[in-house]
């Protein structure tokens, strides 16, 4: 009876949280109601976090000896992470906001990656599709984490110059393919039972390392002025990773919130790139200086002089 009540409470809290997130986001999209929107979303978050402690009533017998330690760790992590980030967010100068968003976004990506890591190391996946989905969430989360940290470092002035090396796109492509290949190897070995050369958990470490390196390599060549668009992309990535981990854990609140942020973040990225007169592909895959030089090398057309008073009529 107690476990049923706990399950119902968790389910109801998650439902309320999902509704408040959507409603809050809707209110945040208009200047007049924006301030109340974040409050509503905050209430949803608090409700979901408090309710999730009811999971202790519904655990496996094998977990019971660890339970006290787990709850202590959970409270400690909530206190350190929550209070630390809260104070940092309150204190930081208004001009330093974008890099704070980047670092918090990186934290979210890291959390999604960590959840995936627990699932992978614990060998919790039951079939191929679940394993593939977990690996996908881990990949996106890890890229988002390391990429966001680089974005933060650039905006904070820790890294001053964009690092560009020859044939960078090819190197990035190879690293990305390597991550996919390792993921494929993990799936193949787990399913077929072939000798994996190294242990599967070593391959999982390698997979995370390559994914983190790819996030760094992908962000390093992009200049500081483009960082808001890049942060927005990583925001969408983290949302997607959270949604995928929600699917792995079977938690609908994570699925809904993550996917909403994934789609909203994608649209925001497109809008921000459009406001800069650039395409997203242009931001991600070309070096800003090069493209300007190439485009404006030859000016075509004729020059006509006109008086200022005529300009209005000319432009009509």
């Amino acid at each position, binding site marked *: 009876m107690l476990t049923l009540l706990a399950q119902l409470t968790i389910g109801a809290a998650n439902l309320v949280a999902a509704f408040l997130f959507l409603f809050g986001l809707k209110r945040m999209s208009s200047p007049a109601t924006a301030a109340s929107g974040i409050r509503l979303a905050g209430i949803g978050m608090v409700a979901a976090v408090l309710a999730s402690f009811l999971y202790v009533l519904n655990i496996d017998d094998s977990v019971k000896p660890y339970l006290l330690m787990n709850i202590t760790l959970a409270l400690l992590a909530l206190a350190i992470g929550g209070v630390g980030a809260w104070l940092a967010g309150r204190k930081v100068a208004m001009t330093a906001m974008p890099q704070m968003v980047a670092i*918090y976004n990186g934290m979210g990506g890291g959390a999604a990656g960590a959840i995936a890591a627990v699932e992978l190391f614990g060998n919790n996946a039951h079939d191929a599709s679940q394993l593939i989905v977990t690996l996908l969430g881990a990949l996106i989360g890890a890229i988002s984490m390391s990429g966001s940290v680089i974005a933060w470092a650039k905006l904070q002035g820790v890294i001053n110059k964009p690092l560009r090396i020859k044939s960078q796109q090819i190197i990035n492509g190879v690293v990305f393919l390597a991550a996919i290949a390792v993921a494929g190897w993990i799936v193949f070995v787990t399913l077929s039972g072939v000798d994996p050369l190294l242990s599967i958990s070593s391959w999982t470490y390698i997979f995370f390392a390559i994914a983190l390196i790819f996030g760094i390599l992908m962000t390093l060549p992009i200049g500081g002025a483009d960082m808001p668009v890049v942060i927005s992309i990583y925001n969408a990535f983290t949302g997607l990773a959270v949604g995928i981990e929600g699917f792995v854990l079977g938690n609908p*609140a994570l699925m809904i919130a993550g996917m909403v*942020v994934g789609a909203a973040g994608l649209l925001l990225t497109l809008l921000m790139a459009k406001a800069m007169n650039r395409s997203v592909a242009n931001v991600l895959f070309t070096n800003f200086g090069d493209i300007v030089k190439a485009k404006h090398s030859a000016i075509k057309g004729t020059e006509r002089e006109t008086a200022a008073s005529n300009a209005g009529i000319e432009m009509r």
Partner: protein
Amino acid sequence: MSFDFTITGFVALHIFMLAGFAGWVIIGNVPAILHTPLMSGSNFIHGIVVVGGLYTLINASTTQEQVIGFFAVLLGAGNAAGGYAVTDRMLAMFKSSEPASKPHRSHASKKKH
């Protein structure tokens, strides 16, 4: 007696599809001035990952799982709390200068820089 609350398979794909559509529609036609606050606000919303971290940590049964779960909750809590603090401060700039009175004029024009 217990109910199964997990959502799998095609039901999950339907939820993904509807949630993605909802996110797209909600953000559509937003003024450029709100791009950064909305990015920050959606950044806060994916802080819900802390709930997944709590679930993982509470169900941890090895030291490795405890360590990774600890970091999942730590990072997720940082995402949620920091995201809220930053977004709240950004959006406070959109509030009218006299918070007690009822809003009756355009708030965007009163925003202080």
